[in-house]
């Protein structure tokens, strides 16, 4: 059987994902994977519909709170806790999307930011989130009553599987009849309207899917770190996901993932630098945007396309 280069490339990446925890600290890798899934979900809107949300932390962070609460206070299984987190993010996405999609450009970003700030204050004030402390000591539990997630490799492979499925779902959405309409809207919205597309409905569905998958990433992160805190609902997190996506390359398959890992690596290696991290991160961002206008993967993609690989 002849495998296509695309398949070989994907398998190679998967292989790296499988062996990496034997060489690198798994928690660090899982953090990268969670943010990679988050950034990929965010890019479903930015790269494929052309909508810049500046409030995506609310889906990521709130899903984390709900999952943490369900696992700790209600002693629910990890799969149910994650499911509840995803549902919360999806519903939140429905409401936010419904309010925001009528706005264009910067107004869309502002509405999402305003609603995310509101949810941040809810997180600060609501008793169940435990304010500054967050929800700590979240039990990871037994996945499907079988797999003990306290085992570092077991949870790592679970997170990897969720990441792969999430990315596959996003890829499918992009490469579906629905995805074709999204790209049409991104390229020329008035034309899509003049062909009879009710574009708001398409944008809303894309927003809800993006919010739901962002929630999946946040829920998983809460189990990995056994913690849900204000950091993940703060607007910093909303900004970070924009950074990761643009750095790696919006509208590409692997760009947000690469961007997420680059940012997480920078943050890790500069952990001692304190408040300098933000400044260094900002400087790197500016340099990258100047050097690679289309992000790292976006810039490399023509080269990969020549050898028959879509990145």
């Amino acid at each position, binding site marked *: 059987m002849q495998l296509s280069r695309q398949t070989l490339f994907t398998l190679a990446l998967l292989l790296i994902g499988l062996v990496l925890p034997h060489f690198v600290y798994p928690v660090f890798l899982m953090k990268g994977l969670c943010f990679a899934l988050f950034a990929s979900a965010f890019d479903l809107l930015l790269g494929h519909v052309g909508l810049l949300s500046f409030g995506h932390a609310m889906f990521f962070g709130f899903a984390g709170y709900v999952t943490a609460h369900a696992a700790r206070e209600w002693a629910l299984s990890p799969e149910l806790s994650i499911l509840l987190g995803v549902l919360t993010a999806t519903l939140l996405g429905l409401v936010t999307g419904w309010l925001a999609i009528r706005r264009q450009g910067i107004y869309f970003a502002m509405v999402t930011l305003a609603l995310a700030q509101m949810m941040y204050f809810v997180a600060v004030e609501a008793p169940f989130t435990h304010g500054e402390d967050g929800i700590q000591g979240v039990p990871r539990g037994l996945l499907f009553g079988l797999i003990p997630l306290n085992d570092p490799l077991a949870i790592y492979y679970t997170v990897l599987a969720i990441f792969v499925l999430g990315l596959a779902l996003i890829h499918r959405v992009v490469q579906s*009849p629905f995805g*074709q*309409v999204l790209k049409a809207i991104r*390229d*020329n919205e008035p034309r899509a309207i*003049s*062909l*009879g*597309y009710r574009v708001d409905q*398409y944008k809303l569905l894309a927003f809800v899917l993006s919010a739901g998958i962002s929630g999946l990433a946040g829920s998983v992160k809460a189990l990995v770190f056994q913690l849900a805190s204000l950091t993940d609902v703060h607007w910093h997190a909303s900004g970070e996901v924009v950074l990761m996506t643009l750095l790696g390359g919006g509208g590409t398959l692997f760009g947000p993932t690469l961007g997420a890992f680059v940012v997480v690596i920078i943050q890790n290696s500069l952990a001692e630098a304190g408040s300098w991290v933000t400044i260094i991160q900002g400087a790197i961002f500016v340099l990258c945007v100047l050097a690679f206008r289309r992000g790292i993967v976006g810039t490399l993609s023509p080269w990969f396309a020549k050898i028959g690989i879509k990145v």
Partner: protein
Amino acid sequence: MAEDSIIETRDLTKEFSGFTAVSGVNLRIRRNTIHALIGPNGAGKTTCFNLITGFLRPTRGQVLYDGRDITALPPAEVARLGMVRSFQISAVFGKLSVLDNVIVALQRKHGLSFQFWRPSSVLNVFIAQAQSLIDDVGLSDYAGIPAGELSYGRKRALEIATTLALDPPMILLDEPMAGMGAEDTSKITDLIRTVAKNRTILMVEHNLSVVADLSDTITVLEGGQVLAEGPYDQVSTNPAVIDAYMGGAHG
């Protein structure tokens, strides 16, 4: 007479913060005819298109389509009634291939456009039809190219193919031949004549020989108002028209 018209506007008026771009326009477009809207730049032709297709709300007046009041209808709903417009600035989906541009139009009526869980290969059933539409406008050799990379004239041709994919009874074309060479112009002229057999076409066009050649009726707009209306011979000999338009900038 009235039931013979597919579009009717009554006292159609649009003001932009005090400036009246379209003023009391009463149009009557007869079914299965080619109707040209001409006039100098800034006359209000594109604004009329926007008002008729729901992309702008009139300050005053009404738009009727098939006798139905569509003045307040959102543009996507107007399109769904069978009135599809093009834009003055060529409107293609730049990153999609030429073939995919047409398929996006074809898939709309088939109720699978919300199916995000199915692979886009389910759209392959439309390839043959899309290819034949592309052939009709002379773009056979460009099917796989991103639409954004086409020349201006070919983008206009693709727009027409995409519009025809919806098989609409009413087509509005805003300067379809602008920026085209003589060869492309005559190709598109022939194409418009062919597709107009069982359709109504309202077009804005500056090329007067094309207008003379194609249109059954011509409306001359100036300063947002109708200056003259009728068949080409009648309009072109109207002293007011000669004075204001034909003898002027576009002579």
